C-alpha cells in the first residue's frame, strides 16, 4: 500500500512541476504581445534601444503614439478600421448566405452541373492566391469591384471553395426525410431551405463564419491588389504602408496602431473561444 501511495505522490509532484513549466512557457509566449504594449508608450528612438525595458521617465510619452497614430502614414487610421469592418462583415454574410444555399442545392439536386461546380470548388482550395492574383485584380478592376462595398463579391468568389466544401459535407449528413416531410406539408424549396434546413446548419454556419472572419480581417494581398489603395485601406494594408510612407518608420506609433488592431481580435477570441477553436479544427481539411 505504501508504494502505491508513494507513486501517487510522485505523480502528483510531476504534474505540479509540469504545470509550473507550462505556466512559464505561457508567460514567454505572451511576451511578444507584452512587448507591443510597453513599446506603444515609448518614444520612437527608445523602441529600438530599450525594447524590453518598461517605459521610464525619459522614454514614456503617454498616449502621444496613439494620437500621432490616428493620422500617421497620411491616412486616417479610423478609416482603415471602418473599411476592414465593412469588408469583413459583408463578405462573411455573403459567403454564409449564398454558399449555404448553393451547397444545399448541390447536395440535393446532384445534377452534372452541380458535380462540375462542386469539383471546381474543391479544386479551388488547392490553388494558391499568387496563381490568380494578377488576373483577378484586373478582372475586379474592369468590373468596378474595387471598393469596400463591392470587394465582398470577390471574396465570395475566391472563398466559395472551402465554404461550399464544408456545407455540402454537413448537408449530406442531414436525413432527407425531414425535407420530404416539409414538402408534403406544402413547403416550396425556398421555404424548406430557410425554415427547415438553415436552422439545422447552425453549427456549420458558425464554423464557416469564424474561418471567413479570420481570413478576411487579416487578409493583406487580395485587398491591396483589388482596392483603390489611395482611397481605401484595410488595417493590414495601412500597417504595411506605414513603412513606405516615410524613409524610416516611427516604431512607437506603429506599435500603438498594432496594439489597437489586435485588441478587438483578442476580445473576439476570448468571447467566442470555444467556437473559434472548433471552427478552426473543422477547417483543418484545407491545405
Amino acid at each position, binding site marked *: 500500500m505504501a508504494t502505491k501511495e508513494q507513486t501517487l505522490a510522485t505523480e502528483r509532484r510531476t504534474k505540479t512541476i509540469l504545470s509550473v513549466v507550462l505556466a512559464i512557457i505561457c508567460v514567454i509566449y505572451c511576451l511578444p504581445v507584452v512587448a507591443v504594449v510597453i513599446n506603444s508608450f515609448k518614444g520612437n528612438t527608445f523602441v529600438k534601444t530599450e525594447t524590453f525595458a518598461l517605459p521610464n521617465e525619459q522614454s514614456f510619452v503617454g498616449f502621444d503614439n496613439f494620437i500621432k497614430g490616428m493620422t500617421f502614414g497620411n491616412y486616417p487610421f479610423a478609416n482603415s478600421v471602418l473599411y476592414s469592418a465593412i469588408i469583413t462583415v459583408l463578405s462573411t454574410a455573403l459567403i454564409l448566405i*449564398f454558399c449555404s444555399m448553393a451547397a444545399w442545392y448541390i447536395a440535393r439536386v446532384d445534377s452534372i452541373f452541380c458535380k462540375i461546380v462542386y469539383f471546381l470548388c474543391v479544386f479551388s482550395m488547392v490553388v494558391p492566391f499568387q496563381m490568380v492574383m494578377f488576373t483577378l485584380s484586373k478582372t475586379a478592376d474592369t468590373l468596378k469591384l474595387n471598393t469596400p462595398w463591392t470587394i465582398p463579391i470577390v471574396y465570395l468568389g475566391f472563398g466559395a471553395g472551402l465554404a461550399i466544401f464544408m456545407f455540402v459535407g454537413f448537408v449530406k449528413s442531414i436525413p432527407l426525410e425531414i425535407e420530404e416531410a416539409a414538402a408534403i406539408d406544402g413547403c416550396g424549396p425556398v421555404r424548406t431551405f430557410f425554415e427547415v434546413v438553415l436552422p439545422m446548419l447552425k453549427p456549420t454556419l458558425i464554423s464557416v463564419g469564424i474561418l471567413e472572419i479570420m481570413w478576411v480581417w487579416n487578409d493583406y494581398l487580395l485587398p491591396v491588389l483589388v482596392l483603390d489603395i489611395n482611397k481605401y485601406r484595410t488595417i493590414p494594408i495601412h500597417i504595411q504602408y506605414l513603412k513606405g510612407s516615410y524613409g524610416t518608420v516611427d516604431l512607437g506609433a506603429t506599435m500603438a496602431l498594432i496594439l489597437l488592431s489586435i485588441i478587438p481580435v483578442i476580445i473576439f477570441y476570448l468571447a467566442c473561444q470555444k467556437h473559434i477553436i472548433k471552427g478552426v479544427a473543422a477547417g483543418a481539411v484545407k491545405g
Partner: protein
Amino acid sequence: MVSRNSIRTTTRKWSWLFIGPVVAAFIIGFVWPFFQGIYLSFCKFKTISSAEFIGLGNYGKALADVSFQHSFWYTALTAVVSLVLINVLAFMVAYLLTQNLKGSNIFRTVFFMPNLIGGIVLGYIWSMIFDGILSAYSTSILLNTTYGFWGLIILMCWQQVGYMMIIYIAGLQAVPEDMLEAAKIDGANKWQTLFQVTIPNVMPSITICMFLSLTNGFKLFDQNLALTGGLPYIINPDGSTVNTTEMLALNIYNTFYTSGAASRGVAQAKAVLFFILVAGLGLAQLAYTRKREVQQ
C-alpha cells in the same frame, strides 16, 4: 405522395436563386482569372489587352531565373525546418495538455492566441523584437540572412504551434482509454505507452498536421513580406540580384509588381509552376488520406 424526383424538379426551377449568385461570383473570383492566368503564362504582355502568344518562353526564363531557384530552395528549407519544429513542439504541448494538468484550459487559450493575429502584424511585432535584441550587437534582421531565416522560423512556430496543438489534442482525446489501460496492466512504462500505443493511434492527426504545415510553409507570404521583405540582397557577378530571404510567393509578387511590366509573363509562368507545386502537395495529401480510409 410527393416523390423525391418531383421535389428535385421543383427545386431545380429555383437554381438561379440557390446556385446562381455563387456561380457568378465564382466565375469572377476564380474560374475566369485561373484560366486567363494559364493562358497569359504563354504570352508576352504588359497589359492583358496587349498579350501576344509566345509559347513556352516564359517558363524557360522562369526556370533559368537565379532568384526564382534560390527562392525555391529557401522556401523548401523553411517549410521542412518549420514542419519538424512546429509538429514536435505542438505534439509535446498537446500531450502535456491531455494529462489532466491544472490550468490546461488557460494554457490552451494562450498557445492558440497568436493564430488570430494577421501575418503582416505578426511580421512587424517580431521585427521589432528581433531588432531590439540585435541592435545591442549593432546589426539588424534585415542585414543577416541567417538571422532572417531563424527569425521567420521562430515567428512561424509562435503562430502555428497552437493551431497544430488543437488538432493533436483532438487526436489524443480519441485514443481508446482501454488500450492505454491494457498497456498499463501489461507493465508498459510511460515512454513505451507513448511510442507503441498513443503515437500509432494519432497517426491520422500527425499526417494532417504535417501536410498542413508543409503547405503553410510553401504558401507563406505576409509574414515573409513584413519580417524581412526578402532582405538582405546580394548581387551576383553577372549583375542579377537575389533577395536572400525571399520565399516563392514573394518572389512571384516581386516579379509581377516591382521588376517592371515586361516581366509579367515570366511572373505568371512562375505562378503556374507554384500552383502545380502546391496543388501537387494537396493531391498527395488527398491520395494519402484516401488510402488510409480504404485500409480501415
